[in-house]
């Protein structure tokens, strides 16, 4: 009777909610568009656009031409009859010209572009002479004035994107910092890493599983092998698997993505070899379930309730399934340790797990566990990069406020340096 009562109560509550939602939609009268006035024969042809220029779009992969012009004298001024501009394109100055798009009145730029695949719609091949013309169009579509033809212009890709110079500077800065601290770590310098509660609990949780004779469930999340959090999770998995091998406990790693499964298999195999127990490694410890988000959750929930793992470790990228997994694990009485960089999912792990690694702690955990010079050097470099961010933020805010208080514009120039375009 208990399940029936629960189901009936739940359904009754939801019925009330659905009734509350089920107001019939109110039919809205069709709006009268005041602009839909029949064209008047008194419209005179507008002035054409002027200073029309066509240039290859900068900082791109090609296949794009940017047009710019001065609006028609009758666009918002004069007779104010221009309602839009129609852009025409041809590969010959004599035509024929085809329409490739339009811009509303007041616009002064238009980008004619296509995807880089040759089978893309309206494909724009590079290194081909192109000519453009723009018609200033009135409400009566037949009354329009063409501009002069501009061209030839060719599209092409650029090797260097000026708009991303700040990123290049940041990468160089971070790279140099990493190299410096890597060298120091290799030279034997003692690089301190503060303790992380969640990671310190891993060993304790593995010991508990061993004592109870129950398995450890490691969930890599829904990320692919290209996600940074999944990559960080592989390192933690390696450490957990090594300890599991040493304690001769059973490990279960159900995977959502086939490539992640392949990498996880390699990681666990290497960990068992490191622990000196290659014979204990079984291929079916790490297996693929399904590529469907909630199918995966359903299956993992089933594993939790049927195999009753002593410890559940969730590390990687998680989405809506985070609470479903963590709540089921809590019901099953497992110790739960989680870590993700998905900000929207961290709250769910915080409420339902015993330990949670928040955001970047997940990346730090791999360095903390591995203690390898490469990872420790990188962690130290990250801290210095954060210090640089704090200094820049302080200087920037100070500059902006002082400059604004004295009505100077140099404060904004400082901000422009950090602006990444395209």
């Amino acid at each position, binding site marked *: 009777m208990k399940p029936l009562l629960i189901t009936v109560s739940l359904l009754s509550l939801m019925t009330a909610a659905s009734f509350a939602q089920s107001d019939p939609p109110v039919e809205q009268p069709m709006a009268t568009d005041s602009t839909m006035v029949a064209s008047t024969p008194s419209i005179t042809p507008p002035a054409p656009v002027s200073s029309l220029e066509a240039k290859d779009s900068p900082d791109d992969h090609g296949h794009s031409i940017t047009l710019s012009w001065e609006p028609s004298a009758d666009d918002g001024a004069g007779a104010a009859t221009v309602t839009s501009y129609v852009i025409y394109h041809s590969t010959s100055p004599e035509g024929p010209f085809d329409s490739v798009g339009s811009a509303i009145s007041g616009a002064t730029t238009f980008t004619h572009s296509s995807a880089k695949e040759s089978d893309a719609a309206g494909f724009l091949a590079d290194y081909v002479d192109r000519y453009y013309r723009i018609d200033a169009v009135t409400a009566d579509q037949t009354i329009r004035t063409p501009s002069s033809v501009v061209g030839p212009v060719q599209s092409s890709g650029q090797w260097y994107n000026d708009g991303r110079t700040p990123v290049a500077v940041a990468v160089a800065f971070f790279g140099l910092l990493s190299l410096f601290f890597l060298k120091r770590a290799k030279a034997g310098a003692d690089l301190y890493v503060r303790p992380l509660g969640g990671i310190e609990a891993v060993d304790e949780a593995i010991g508990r599983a061993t004592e109870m004779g129950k398995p450890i469930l490691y969930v890599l999340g829904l990320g692919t092998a290209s996600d940074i959090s999944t990559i960080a999770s592989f390192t933690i998995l390696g450490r957990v698997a090594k300890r599991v091998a040493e304690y001769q406990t059973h490990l279960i790693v159900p995977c959502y993505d086939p490539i992640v499964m392949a990498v996880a298999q390699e990681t666990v195999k290497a960990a068992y070899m490191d622990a000196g127990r290659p014979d204990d490694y079984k291929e079916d410890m790490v297996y693929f379930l399904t590529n469907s988000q909630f199918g995966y959750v359903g299956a993992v929930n089933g594993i939790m309730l049927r195999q009753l793992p002593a410890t559940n470790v969730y590390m990687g990228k998680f989405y809506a399934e985070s609470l479903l997994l963590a709540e089921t694990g809590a019901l099953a009485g497992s110790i739960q340790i989680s870590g993700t960089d998905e900000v929207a999912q961290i709250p*769910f792990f915080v409420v339902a797990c015993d330990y949670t690694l928040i955001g970047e702690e997940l990346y730090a955990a791999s360095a903390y566990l591995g203690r390898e010079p490469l990872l420790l050097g990188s962690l130290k470099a990250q801290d210095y990069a954060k210090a640089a961010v704090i200094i820049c*933020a302080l200087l920037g805010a100070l500059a902006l406020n002082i400059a604004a208080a004295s009505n100077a514009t140099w404060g904004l120039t400082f901000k422009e340096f950090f602006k990444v375009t395209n």
Partner: protein
Amino acid sequence: MSRLAIIVTICVVVLFLGSWIFKALQAQDAGVDHYLLRGFLVTCSAFLTLAILSFLYKDNPIYKFAEHLYVGISAGYWMSQGFWSTIVGNLIPRLSQSLSGFFKQPYNAGEWMGGFFYTNWVFYVPVIFGVLLLMRLSSKYGWISRWALAFIVGTTAGLQFIRYMRSDFIEQISSTFVPLLVDWQGIGHFFSNLSLSATGQLVAMVSNWIIFLGVLCGLIYFFFSKEHTGLFGKASRFGIWILMVTFGASFGYTVMGRVSLLVGRITFLFRDWLGITS
């Protein structure tokens, strides 16, 4: 199988068949084509929904059935989807005219790059890596698959690094450049002129201070190579408080989204299946 299990199974089957017949008759009355199939699909959806919801009570054979059905069908579906959209839809039309014809896909010859080279030749790279990955099936040459894995992980990590550097580093810095005191006309002005603009200014200023201090203290919390003691520790503490308040707000927001999903499912049961609501 226990007697209870047999009774429950019989009840479920009878209910399912009854619902199927009822929904099919309803669909027939409404003039729906394929009314038998329609009745079956609605009944199936409703029973599977209830089977999944039964997990709220505890793990049971009905849930297990729904779970295994879901996992099996979805795994098969995604494999089929991957084959038809990636291999047949994207790869074959760029590499083989005859195979494109076989799969009735339009052939894409690509662009000539000069010499013997065509742009489409780059698609041989994933083919080679795909074959390398399949070497895992061989116990003798399985190690070759590590090359493909190393390429996938290394390349994508490098690409992601640039994206993170841009969105989480550079743009984060410039987003912290906010006016902290500018345009603020003083607390006396605020109390003597409780106008919207003065209130708006105060709100904007407080908001900007929260952003500014929140970012700085949040960053300090994520310092791993220094002990969080003294003033540094206090700033770190403030940072984690800011994070927790943010998580709390995010939690409430997301829970509301989940409730709306549940309402959608229950609406299906009551409207489309039982027909109690309209």
